[in-house]
C-alpha cells in the first residue's frame, strides 16, 4: 500500500508540471462556458422591423417606441421580411394605413426557426398590445397582476444548463485520454516494465494511476464549478456529496473504457483515433449542449444508453436542483453508470496487457 502513495505523489507532481496537459484539460470547458455565458447575456430587447405607410401616425407605434423592451426599426416591407428571415430582426410588425373598422389588425411576422425565441417575441408583443388596448379604452383594468420575484429565485440560463454537461464532458475526456492515451504512452516507452522489476505490484501501479486521474478530475471539476458560479454567475445547486458520488461513478465508467483502449492499442498514436471515435459522438449527442429529447426519437433511444448521457443526466438532475440521489428519475442514470463500470471493467480486465 505504501507503494501506491509513493507513486501517486510522484504522479501528481508529474501532472502538475505538465502545463500543456493542464491547459487542455481546462481549456475547452472554460472556453465553452465563457462563450455561452456571453451569448446568454446579450441585450434582451426585442428587435422589430416596423412597416407602416408613409404619413401614418399610429398611437400604437408611439407607445411601442417609448417602451424599453422593444427596438423599432422602420423599413420597407421587402427588407423587413428578408431581415426577419435572416434572423437579424425578431419580427416584422405591419401597421395598416388607417383604422376604419375596429379592431385594427396589426400583422406580426416572426421567424420560427427558433421556436422558443419566436413564441417569446409573439407573447411579448401580444401582451404589450393588450396593455395598450386597456390603456386606450380609458377604463381601469378588471385584473392586475402583481408580479414579485421570489427570494433566491433565478432565471435558468443556458449556462446553467451547460455547466453540468461541461463537467461530464471534462470527466470523460480526462479519464478516457488519461488512461487510454497516457498509460499507453508509458507502456510504449517502457516505464511500466521498469516498475515491474520493483516490488511495486502491478495493481498498485494501476491504482496509483487511477487515483491520479481521479484527483485531476475532481480538482478540475472544482475549478470549473468555481469559475462558472463566481465569475460567470451560473446559478446551480451544489449538493457536494451527491455530486462527488456521481463524478466518481462517471470517472469509473470512462477509466474502465480507457483501460480497454490501452489494452487494445499498441502505441499511443493508435489510441488517438480510437478515443476520438468513442468520445466525439457522445460529446454531441449525449445531452451536453442540447437535451437528448430534442434528437429524433430512434436516435434518442440509442443515445439514452451512452455512458456520457447517464453522467450528464445525473449531474444536471442534481445541479438543477430538480433531483436528489434518492429520486426515482435518478435511478436510471445511477444504474446505467454502474452497469457501464461493470461491463467495461470486465472487458478491460480481459484485454489488458502489460507489454
Amino acid at each position, binding site marked *: 500500500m*505504501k*507503494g501506491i502513495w*509513493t*507513486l501517486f505523489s*510522484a*504522479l501528481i*507532481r*508529474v501532472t502538475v*508540471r*505538465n502545463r500543456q496537459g493542464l491547459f487542455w484539460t481546462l481549456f475547452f470547458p472554460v472556453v465553452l462556458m465563457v462563450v455561452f455565458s456571453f451569448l446568454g447575456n446579450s441585450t434582451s430587447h426585442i428587435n422589430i422591423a416596423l412597416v407602416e405607410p408613409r404619413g401614418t401616425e399610429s398611437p400604437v407605434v408611439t407607445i411601442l417606441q417609448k417602451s424599453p423592451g422593444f427596438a423599432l426599426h422602420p423599413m420597407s416591407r421587402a427588407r423587413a421580411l428578408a431581415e426577419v428571415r435572416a434572423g437579424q430582426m425578431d419580427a416584422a410588425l405591419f401597421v395598416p394605413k388607417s383604422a376604419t373598422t375596429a379592431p385594427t389588425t396589426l400583422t406580426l411576422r416572426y421567424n420560427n426557426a427558433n421556436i422558443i425565441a419566436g413564441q417569446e417575441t409573439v407573447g411579448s408583443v401580444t401582451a404589450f398590445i393588450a396593455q395598450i388596448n386597456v390603456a386606450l379604452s380609458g377604463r381601469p383594468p378588471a385584473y392586475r397582476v402583481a408580479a414579485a420575484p421570489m427570494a433566491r429565485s433565478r432565471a435558468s440560463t443556458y449556462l446553467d444548463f451547460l455547466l453540468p454537461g461541461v463537467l461530464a464532458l471534462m470527466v470523460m475526456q480526462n479519464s478516457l485520454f488519461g488512461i487510454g492515451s497516457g498509460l499507453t504512452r*508509458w507502456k510504449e*516507452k*517502457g*516505464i511500466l*516494465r*521498469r*516498475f*515491474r*522489476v*520493483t*516490488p*511495486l505490484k502491478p495493481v498498485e501501479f494501476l491504482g496509483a494511476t487511477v487515483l491520479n486521474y481521479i484527483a485531476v478530475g475532481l480538482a478540475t471539476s472544482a475549478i470549473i464549478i468555481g469559475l462558472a458560479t463566481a465569475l460567470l454567475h451560473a446559478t446551480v445547486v451544489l449538493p457536494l456529496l451527491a455530486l462527488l458520488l456521481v463524478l466518481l461513478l462517471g470517472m469509473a465508467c470512462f477509466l474502465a473504457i480507457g483501460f480497454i483502449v490501452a489494452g487494445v492499442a499498441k502505441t499511443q498514436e493508435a489510441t488517438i483515433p480510437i478515443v476520438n471515435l468513442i468520445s466525439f459522438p457522445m460529446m454531441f449527442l449525449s445531452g451536453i449542449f442540447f437535451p437528448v429529447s430534442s434528437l429524433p426519437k430512434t436516435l434518442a433511444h440509442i443515445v439514452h444508453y451512452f455512458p456520457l448521457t447517464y453522467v450528464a443526466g445525473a449531474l444536471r438532475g442534481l445541479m438543477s436542483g430538480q433531483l436528489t440521489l434518492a429520486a426515482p428519475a435518478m435511478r436510471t442514470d445511477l444504474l446505467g453508470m454502474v452497469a457501464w463500470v461493470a461491463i467495461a471493467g470486465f472487458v478491460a480486465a480481459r484485454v489488458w496487457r502489460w507489454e
Partner: protein
Amino acid sequence: MALPDDRRTGTMAEMGEYMHQAALRLENLTKRYGALLAVDHLNLEVPPGQIFSLLGPNGAGKTTTLEMTEGLRPPDEGHVYLGDVDVIRHPAVARLRFGVQLQTSAFFELLTVRETLELFGNLYPNALDVSVLITRMGLDEKAAARVEALSGGQRQRLALGVALVNDPEVVFLDEPSAGLDPQARRNLWDVILGLKAEGRTVVLTTHYMDEAEVLSDGLAIMDHGRVLDAGTPRELIARHLPGAMIEVDPAVGIGSEATGIPGVTSIERREEATVLVTERLEEALVGLVAWAGRERRELRGLRTRSATLEDVFLKLTGRSLRE
C-alpha cells in the same frame, strides 16, 4: 572461474555455503516466440561476487535471457535461482535482492533525477542514500534537473543509479555502456568494479570486447539462444585460439593456398587484415616468408599478436559483434 573472497553478508558458516552456492543459476531456460527459439535450453552459473558478461551478436537472446532471469518474461521451460530463491515462483522475494538496468527503460520526464531515485528508493524497505548515489553516478550537477533535460549518457547513468537504489546483491545491466562517450565508459567501468569490490554480483551484456575483457571474471558467448562457450577470458582464448595470430595487409592477397604453409592452422580474410592462426609461431613465420619469396609478394603490414576475445568471438559465432 575465481571464487569470491569478499562476501558482504553472512557468518563464516554461511560463507562456506555461499562458496558452493551460485549467486545465480539458470537451468534449461527456454523461450520461444512462435517458431523462433530465442533462448534454447540455456544453462549458466554465476558465482557470487563476480562480474559475469553475456556476449553475443544482435538477436542472440541476451536481453530475453536477462528478462526471464528478472522475472519480466515467463520462460517456456526452465528455472532461475537467485541464491536459493526460485525467481519464477517467488519474484517478489527476488526483486528485493536484485537491481535492474533494462536495455531500454524510461522514467517520468517531468521528475528530477533526485525525485526519480527517491521514488524508486521508496518502493523498497531498504534503500541507499540518494545523495550518495547521485554523487557515485556523477550526476551531482544534474540532481535537480528533470529527466527530460538529460543527455542519453546521463539517462544511462540515472538508470544505473535506479538499479542500485535497493542495495542489491545481484545487479543486472543490459548494455550499460550503450551510448556513452569513452570517458563515461571508463567511469562506468569504475562503478561496476566498485560494485564487485562491495561484494555484489554483476551480470551484464555488452557489445564491447575490451569492456568484457577488462571487467569480466567470467563470460558466456551466446548466439541463437545458446551458450557457445563460457569461462574466464583467458580460458576461452586458451581453449579456442591457444596460439598466435599473424596479420598482413589484405592487399597482399593471401588466399586459401596459404593453408599449405607449415604451421598455419587456418586463415581468415577480414576486412582490416588477413589473419593467419598458428600454434607454432616461428615455423609459420618462416613458412610465410618463404611463401612470399616464391610468390614474389611483399608482406606489407606484417605483425604478430596473441589472440584476443574478439578473435574467439569471431571464431565461435562467425560474426562480428557489431555487425
